[in-house]
């Protein structure tokens, strides 16, 4: 039987059709099963805050230690319109999330994330 790690790449379209709670449950359910999740578009800050809180509630000794998560720094919108209305918005970018005991970040800069993934 083929041994390895499952990686799920979730499109921006699918994420946009989910509520914040659905997104967080989707991510945590997959990560708890040992799947590495790559989101085409990252979570909003409030969703990240809920993800940390929910992750803490899911941690169990010798079972699930939490998550490793990396994303590129968000991009600021400096368009003419955003300057005109006096608001700069930031958009989140591709994000990788996995079980803390399987996913280790090696290196990250503003345009590249290098990660090492181990089997369970």
């Amino acid at each position, binding site marked *: 039987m083929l041994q390895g790690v499952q990686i799920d790449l979730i499109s921006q379209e699918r994420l946009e059709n989910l509520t914040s709670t659905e997104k967080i449950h989707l991510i945590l359910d997959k990560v708890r099963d040992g799947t590495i999740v790559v989101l085409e578009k990252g979570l909003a*800050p409030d969703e990240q*805050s809920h993800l*940390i809180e929910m992750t*803490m*509630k899911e*941690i169990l000794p010798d079972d699930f230690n939490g*998550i*490793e*998560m990396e994303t590129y720094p968000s991009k600021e919108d400096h368009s003419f319109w955003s300057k005109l209305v006096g608001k700069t918005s930031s958009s989140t970018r591709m994000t990788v999330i996995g079980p*803390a005991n399987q996913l280790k970040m090696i290196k990250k800069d503003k345009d590249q994330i290098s990660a090492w993934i181990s089997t369970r």
Partner: protein
Amino acid sequence: MNIFVQTKNSVSRFLSAFFKKKRSRIGIYGPPNAGKTTLANRIAHDWAGESIGVVSEVAHESRRALRKQDIGISGSNGHSITIDIVDTPGVTTKIDYKEFLEYGLPKEEAIVRAREATEGVAEAMHWLREDIDGVVYMLDSTSDPFQQVNIMMIGIIESRNLPVIIAANKIDLPDAAPQKIRSVFPQHPVVPISCLDGKNIEELYEQMVHTFR
């Protein structure tokens, strides 16, 4: 009651409501072992003559948010603030009880400590969304500030429009590089400090009065 007394009382009520000193809840957030409780203790000691929590080299020594109420801090310009200091557990996305075994804790105690730490982090995140008016984000200036948890936390704080000061702690250590923290978070005031020996702590108090007023 004559009209003059009624008017005087109304004006008095209006003025007291308008100029009433607001008490802000200031959360000390940051990764584990950055020195949050040492800072909370120093603030409480310097301005209220008391301590808040226990400090140790073991990560997640603070596993519950601890609060010291009604601390008045004055700046050199005559302005002052009244705050509740909330010392929060170190924020992280992972907690493994086995890390505590390395400090010689028995397994059962390590598991209890890990469970308490997870509850504390969840509580701290909830507080940040619901009950905090401003943040002192504490970083160890000998560590890499470009860690995901720091980027994420500053993003969460910014999204809630909370005023924030970044305290670059442990400048008493030879490897300290507070300028690196400034380069990662140029959009926020960064105050290099040593909570241990008190270096630059007055500058932090001045910044707190300025930012949280």
